[in-house]
């Protein structure tokens, strides 16, 4: 088995020809991470889709994590496995967040659009940066999408203001979503797949060896209906 020198999970098991990729939904408490995953479970029709594992909750708040496995077998015979996780957003579950974040390949940061939640968004993003550093991952080189959820909420901070606030960061433009209505969920997920592909391609020669193009990668893993 090939052991990789850096901290990401994406792991290729040669004798099974299996490549496992880990994506984590991160963000402040109640921002809609679990809702994103539930919507993906409903909306996506990829080649293979596992059960949504909702591990443990109290009053609908995630205590451990949720996980949705998605599978794809390429024509070259490569088993692609995408594991989508959520973390608990509540401040006190930081060690759980850190454990789930270990060896992550891509992150979707789910922020809350309501004005009162802007501080929580910032704190959670700092916490993400901190924990990435602790598990040995460089945030600058990590495929990362920032989604502002709950666009439907009354008084949501204007999109123009949010976009310009983030315009100087590597994560601009932002994705907008109303996960509760299934809006923007698949779109955010696709943007992440687009940012993930070049990293994986560089390491596993997806295009050259496996004949999986960027377009095919995104399209097949995010097929709907």
């Amino acid at each position: 088995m090939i052991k990789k020198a850096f901290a990401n999970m994406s792991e290729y098991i040669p004798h099974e020809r299996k490549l496992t990729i880990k994506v984590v939904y991160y963000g402040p408490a109640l921002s809609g991470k679990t809702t994103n995953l539930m919507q993906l479970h409903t909306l996506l029709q990829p080649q293979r889709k596992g059960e949504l594992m909702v591990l443990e909750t109290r009053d609908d708040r995630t205590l451990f994590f949720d996980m949705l496995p998605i599978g794809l077998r390429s024509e070259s015979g490569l088993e692609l496995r995408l594991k989508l996780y959520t973390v608990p957003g509540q401040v006190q579950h930081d060690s759980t967040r850190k454990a789930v974040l270990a060896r992550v390949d891509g992150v979707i940061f789910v922020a809350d659009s309501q004005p009162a939640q802007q501080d929580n968004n910032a704190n959670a993003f700092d916490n993400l940066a901190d924990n990435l550093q602790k598990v040995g991952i460089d945030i600058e080189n990590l495929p990362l999408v920032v989604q502002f959820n709950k666009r439907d909420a009354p008084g949501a901070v204007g999109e123009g203001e949010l976009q310009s606030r983030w315009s100087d960061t590597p994560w601009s433009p932002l994705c907008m979503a109303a996960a509760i209505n299934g809006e923007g969920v698949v779109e955010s997920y696709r943007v992440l797949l687009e940012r993930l592909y070049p990293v994986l391609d560089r390491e596993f020669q997806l295009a050259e060896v496996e004949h999986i193009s960027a377009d095919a990668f995104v399209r097949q893993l995010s097929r709907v209906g």
Partner: protein
Amino acid sequence: MRNFDDDPALAELLAPERQQDLLRLLQGVTGHRFALSDQPQADAETVEFNLDGVAWLSCAADPQLQAPTARLIEFILTYVGKYRLAANLHHDIAEASFAELQRQHAALQDSEARYRQLSEQLQAQVAAQVKVIEQTQQELYESARLRAIGQLAAGVAHEINNPIGFISSNLRVAEDYVKEIKQGIAGDSAFNALIEDFQALLKESASGTQRIASIVSDLKTFSNIDQADFISCDLNDLLHTSCHLLQAEFSHMLDIELQLGNIGSISGYPAKLSQVFFNVLDNAAKAVEGKGRIRVISRQGAAGHPEVVIEDNGCGISTASLERIFDPFFTTRPVGSGTGLGLTVARETMMAHQGEISIRSREGIGTRVTLKFG
């Protein structure tokens, strides 16, 4: 180490005994024997967990049962797996927390040791500072006392200077008058004896005033010394001169041994320093009473600072007297033979030169005075 999110193998989800329990239960329900393998088997139904094939189920008696039974096992494995994942995550977190706790504990012990060391250092520093403060206080007290005495002495000296001036000039005139009167009554033997007595009285009075004048001058030295007057002084030169003066005073009868080293020069007030040397040498000369010997040593002392040692093998000083030796007006000699200011002045002068004076003495053995310059 395995991570909580690694795909579990069949044995990690269900231990072999539990697998046997499960097969027995299936047999009880269906009446057929099942076999479960963790390796792919031909004609067997794959049992999946999270999209991965983890087991292969076969029922030779009735292959139709394989598919629905595999789904049943998958259903069971989902809940077993949830528990497994949660337990593994919990284990990972507990281990990470414990490692972090140990790291913090080590850091805490480290910092505790540092603080203990720091506190010990601080305690030592405080003790040292307290000592310095106590010493400074003592010195301050002493110098305040000396300053008060000095001011008193300066006042007294100033007040005495004037009358002493006219008394001694009056005495000189009186001596002249008496001389003339003696000539005028030449031969009158009845008055002759009186006149001669009178002359002796005047002479004694004159020498008395002289002594008062010299006490006044000592008092003035004692009460003021000003660093503004400092120039470069060759201590060995000053010692030479002081010894000469002393020899003159004692009719060249003293046995003085000079061991003058190469000590360079210091910045100071030569007249006052000479007086210090002279005062100390004068004490030594009086202690040996013409029988002993005086040794004068100059050398480079500790830290390269010059020091002068004047020692004698004379009568020495009693312990009781030694305690008061620097007190103003303290003297062991008969009244009239000294002011009792010699060593007080010497100490003031040494202090004004950032120096110090110390005395060791044993009665009947001798005395050593050490003058250290700063």
